[in-house]
């Protein structure tokens, strides 16, 4: 029996800065909260193809699992949590902006 498709976002690193980025409705965002959330596998696959083709802007595109708190995506794995917030030893990553 195929594994049920759980909510996901598309993430990558920006080519120039290396920043963690997420695919949003209208391009890439640095905020996970603004990411487009995929609950339909076919739609996610289609958007992955589009995202991975943007080789002049992004590096290492992949799908990351999230859960939804209301409509806000939240990482399910601690690695994605750090990618979304920045390193935990100094407040000098993305957490500076929150």
């Amino acid at each position, binding site marked *: 029996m195929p594994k049920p498709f759980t909510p996901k976002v598309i993430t990558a690193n920006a080519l*120039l800065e*290396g920043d963690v980025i997420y695919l949003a409705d209208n391009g890439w965002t640095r905020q996970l909260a603004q990411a487009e959330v995929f609950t339909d596998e076919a739609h996610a696959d289609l958007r992955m193809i589009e995202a991975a083709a943007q080789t002049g802007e992004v590096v290492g595109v992949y799908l990351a699992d999230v859960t939804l708190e209301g409509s806000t995506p939240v990482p399910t794995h*601690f690695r994605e949590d*750090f990618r979304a917030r920045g390193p935990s*030893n100094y407040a000098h990553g993305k957490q500076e902006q929150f």
Partner: protein
Amino acid sequence: MYHYTDFDDAFLKERNAQFRAQVERRIDGSLTEDEFKPLRLMNGLYLQLHAYMLRVAIPYGTLNSRQMDTLAMIADKWDKGYGHFTTRQNIQYNWPELRDVPDMLDALAAVNMHAIQTSGNTIRNVTADHFAGAAADEVADPRPVAELIRQWSTDHPEFQFLPRKFKVAVTGAKADRAVIKAHDIGLRIVKRDAEIGYEVVIGGGLGRTPMIGKVLYDFVSSEDLLPTLEAIVSVYNLLGRRDNKYKARIKITVHENGIEDIRARVDARYALIRDQFTGVDQQMLARIEADFAQPSFRKADVTPFHNTYQHDPLFRSWADTNLAAHRNPDYAIVSISLKAHGKTPGDATSRQMRLMAQIAKRYGHDELRISHEQNVILPHVHKGDLPSVYYALKAEGLGTANIGLISDIIACPGMDYCALATARSIPIAQEIATRFDELKLEHEVGPLKIKISGCINACGHHHVGHIGILGLDRAGVENYQITLGGDGTEDAAIGERAGPGFSAEEIIPAVERIVLAYLDLRNDPAEEFLQTFRRLGLAPFKAALYPEAPAQKVRENAA
């Protein structure tokens, strides 16, 4: 210090120009990421979890003040105002932007530095004893031969695509401060009769299959060293496994073939290539040795040291902990701790880097070293200057008196930065240091090395920590395994796994239980942690670690 020749300067300029063009071609779309990645890695540029990371070579950990100032300038101009010193005696910048990297490399080249072979399946930055040229117990300074090996290995056409990365470490003393037995090749300078030569150890390494290196030759003459190294790496290049990344290091090659078989192959290869080494390398070595001439030590009053030692207990504590014996009794080797309690091990701000450069220039014959334990060394400081050095360091947060103690922790970047990591290392190190500072037990516990890795690759050397901590991902949760009894010295040993791992919340109390058990178990305060462990074995520490668990259960879980 080694001084670059015109050839060295031209080589770096050409190499940097080449990389600048490659970066431009990646940005304008002429190169794909697949095409660009091996090129950036050949220049020390990784893409990590949150940003690019540039790893800069500090060959054998030696720097002068101008170079340290440049590292500070780079941190301010192109990064976030700090750098991270690593167990390979390198510095890493965690936040560079791709288009700035060629400028960073040019700035490094201006002070005879580079990032070549700090990545990739090639011979990496050669490391050495951080007390080189100063230690009282030294047979000879290991840096000239380390520089010779750097020159021999840099862009060596045969060794750019080895089965895996290849690490060489050199020590010139019997006391091994370079962890040579955990390297692909470890060299120890030895004296036979009056002749200086090298004990050659191969096949050591940590990672998922930790192994202690084996002696390939107990004495290789200076003239035969490079041909021997060439023969070893050639044999590995041919024989090393390329079918499985996890079995590709030379430690596996040695393990699978046996040291006798490898020795026979190296002997055969050596016989074939020996004539290609016509003695030019020995002329180069002589020139390099002249560059590493000892500074002219001065005669001066050491009374200020003794007076301050008597009257300032903080200075006394620092002196007792952070100074090592220099070959000149009027001098000391100063270890500057980059492990202030609660801070990130190995990090230095640009202000701190500049201060260390100033101190080195004024009091330290313009020499600095980076240790594999992620601290900074001033190898030659006159004892009369030590109070001034200490108070200057203290004012900038660099006066922590903890070298070799429980808070002097090696920690890899872990999942806070590294794309390969499976758990965090730094916060665990920060919490352990803070906990034992609060308990005021650090000095009572005495010498104890804790080493933490955030994944099985063991960049934090946890296998050779007296207490080793390995961070793993267990079903989406950070989990930390403990090993005990590891040792990175001349008596090198791989630590024994203690049992089931601990969560991030449980690991600090677990370490505390081990340390309190040691305080109970030791014969007297002079018996160090490792001695107690070797006398009693794992059992009493395991009992302290898992007080609730029946012995059988512990055994099952550890299996």
